[in-house]
């Protein structure tokens, strides 16, 4: 009577599949915990084995687990009690008294019910006298300070190649016959989610003595009309009426259907039919807007009418052959840009703190200029100073300058900035800073003043030159001065283009 995902949960780290690098990092983190005493953040998509790995680790180390997850109340007080209990256990405990504290869904503290929880976790992480693992789906949904206080261990989606052996193992232990291709099909359909793959395997094994590819394929089919089949129906062959009925069997909300169709219809439709199709899609969008405004979901059907029947009715030409349809690119852009947005905001925060203005101002009115002035880390001296003043790390510098994070150039700049900052503290020499600080103020002045674009550009130009001129003269770096000046011209023309 078991759910296979529980039955076959790994009991030791060596059984954790598909994430060798993360697994080894986790083990190393645990083994050296006495030395670094950091907490770890384990993050990655659902079903890739994060929680399993944490429990397997505890098992390997012989540490009892104390777990706090989103099904527990997690106010600041609750967390304090949780951490307190853990250290008490330590004193009462046996030989070494270690315990693994696992905080699941650490990216998901509830605003009201978990009031203060997120902040308290950050505090506990820094003070905990027990090893602690935070588990999360979205690394960047956690606060900056929490992320910085912890070691990051990323679990990637489990590849098809790693999923198949797990399924094969389970089949053997359960005495199920299978075709290799069937397991392959299950693995590729669950796209990186090992847990779903095991669930699907179990569901299929219930019905079939022997697993064949056909079982897997039809198993998927009778569940729901696939979105790709639906796109084929709408765009290629079905009548408006049939396309509408097909939409009833697709398990997607009208919002998602609209996105799918909108993104794929231009791959086949042209000219007049495309214009008509977009007319219907725009109508559908209006219905979705009305649903949002009124919260009356009965209007959803009119959106579906337009998306399915409308787009099919707009078809005037034959679209034979096969078209590569894909998920709405708008989604992947959103997904990709999430990390980017977080990075951008983190840098903006640093700049804003230093400059004494809002993050929005830093983002809109300082960062674009910095980006132009330090494009590809040229001039180097300016880039180093920027890195120093704003305390940027390699990823930040890479983001601003567009140079690769792991390149020697960026690494070198970050190191040098660090050294100089240390020196500056020792000598207490304001000189290095003084050179840059006014530039900073200039930026602020330009932005606060709401001056015309021309004025801003002039101020920024001014800035770049003065900062450049300054350090080249009094810092001990005589040689590159000339070429750098030339580079600046580039930077400035780029800046003008941008404006």
């Amino acid at each position, binding site marked *: *009577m078991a759910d296979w995902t529980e039955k076959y949960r790994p009991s030791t780290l060596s059984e954790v599949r598909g994430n060798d690098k993360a697994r080894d990092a986790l083990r190393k983190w645990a083994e050296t915990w006495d030395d670094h005493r950091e907490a770890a953040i384990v993050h990655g998509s659902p079903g890739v084995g994060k929680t399993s790995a944490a429990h397997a680790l505890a098992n390997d180390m012989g540490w009892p687990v104390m777990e706090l997850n989103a099904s527990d109340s997690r106010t600041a007080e609750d967390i304090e009690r949780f951490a307190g209990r853990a250290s008490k256990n330590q004193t009462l405990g046996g030989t070494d008294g270690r315990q693994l504290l696992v905080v699941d869904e650490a990216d998901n503290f509830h605003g009201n019910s978990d009031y203060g929880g997120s902040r308290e976790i950050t505090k506990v992480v820094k003070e905990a006298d027990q090893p602690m693992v935070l588990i999360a789906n979205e690394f960047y949904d956690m606060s900056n300070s929490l992320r910085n206080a912890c070691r990051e261990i990323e679990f990637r989606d489990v590849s098809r190649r790693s999923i198949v052996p797990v399924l094969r193992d389970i089949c053997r232990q359960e005495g199920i016959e299978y075709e290799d291709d069937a397991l392959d099909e299950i693995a590729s359909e669950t796209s990186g989610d090992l847990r779903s793959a095991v669930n699907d395997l179990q569901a299929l094994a219930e019905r079939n003595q022997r697993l064949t590819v056909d079982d897997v394929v039809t198993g998927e089919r009778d569940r729901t009309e696939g979105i790709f089949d639906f796109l084929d129906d709408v765009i290629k062959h079905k009548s408006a009426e049939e396309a509408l009925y097909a939409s009833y069997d697709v*398990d997607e909300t009208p919002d998602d259907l609209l996105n799918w169709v909108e993104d794929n219809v231009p791959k086949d439709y042209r000219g007049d039919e495309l214009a008509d199709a977009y007319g219907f899609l725009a109508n559908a969008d209006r219905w979705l807007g009305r649903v949002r405004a009124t919260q009356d979901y009965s209007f959803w059907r009119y959106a579906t009418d337009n998306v399915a029947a409308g787009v099919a009715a707009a078809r005037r030409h034959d679209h034979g052959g096969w078209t590569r349809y894909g998920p709405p690119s708008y989604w992947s852009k959103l997904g990709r840009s999430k990390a980017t947005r977080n990075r951008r905001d983190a840098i903006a925060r640093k700049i804003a703190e230093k400059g004494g203005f809002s993050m929005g101002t830093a983002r809109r009115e300082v960062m674009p200029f910095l980006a132009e002035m330090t494009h590809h880390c040229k001039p180097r001296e300016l880039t180093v100073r920027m890195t120093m003043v704003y305390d940027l790390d390699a990823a930040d510098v890479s983001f601003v300058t567009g140079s690769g994070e792991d390149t020697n150039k960026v690494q070198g700049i970050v190191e040098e900035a660090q050294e100089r900052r240390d020196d500056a503290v020792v000598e207490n020499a304001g000189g290095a800073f003084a050179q840059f600080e006014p530039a900073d103020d200039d930026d602020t002045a330009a932005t606060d003043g709401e001056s015309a674009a021309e004025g801003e550009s002039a101020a920024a130009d001014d800035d770049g030159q003065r900062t450049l001129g300054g350090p080249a003269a009094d810092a001990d770096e005589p040689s590159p001065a000339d070429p750098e000046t030339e580079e600046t011209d580039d930077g400035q023309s780029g800046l003008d283009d941008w404006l």
Partner: protein
Amino acid sequence: MSEAEATGDDAGGRKQVWIEKYRPDGLDEVVGHEDIINRIKSYVNKQDLPHLMFAGPAGTGKTATAVSIAKEVYGDDWQENFLELNASDQRGIDVVRQQIKNFASTDWSGRKGNNPSIIFLDEADALTPDAQSALRRTMEQFSNNTRFILSCNYSSQIIDPIQSRCAVFRFSPLADEAVTEQVRFIAAEEGIEYTEDGVDALVYAADGDMRKAINALQAASVMGDAVDEETVYAITSTARPEEVEAMVTDALNGDFVAARAKLDELITERGLAGGDIIDQIHRSAWEFELEEQAAVRLLDRLGEADYRITTGANERIQLEALLASLALE
């Protein structure tokens, strides 16, 4: 089961709500969706039930299937081992942290064999995302003694981590045959007289929603001697499909006056609401042999009238305008 026996002999049957009385006692009695039922039966037979998620519109058997599973596993004691929560009534994170956890962590000494208790979360898509996050770990933690069955209209409204923990089944609207069969069965059980067109009318009015069909049957049986077409259409405030078609056809042929007279009859004499008439035209939109684009335009215009009526416009004027516009197609 026990309830059915208790009241069955009283004939009347009027003392009880039929949708409760005729809830299936076992998976074999669940109507429609044979594929799904077969797969679930094999889980139950092997005592190997995963968490389940049922997606689909109202009245297609999601709750019936969930209750049947509990009855198959527990027999008469099913109610003690089955917690039903409607997420749209109680949708916050506290429900998960308190009610659900309490039920899941209770050790039922009287539990039959080693079977897990079942938590049925109806309309799970109404749970806030926070509550869904709280739910996901609870599902795993108590998986040795609890199974969750989630029902929702669209599975895509449920966060991925929960979907990945469930076997997902999609319930499509019931076929007319399935509704017909069940209506006849209940009518026979209750000793009700009915006409063939009465059954057809019930099936038409229900439109794939078994709950609606059974409710209408019970209401119609109270109204008169035999359940016939007229009673059913009256009770469900539905116009005969032919009437609606005649009205729209008149309008399409440019005879607006005749079309408006028919509309008047439906609204004033028969007391149909504008929304009901819109629903019916919407269902039969494909039967007027319009060009495809014209048919979609009709659907969109219906929506426009629907939207305006909902936001306070006069239903008669909106529908008249709709009929008048049809002459252009």
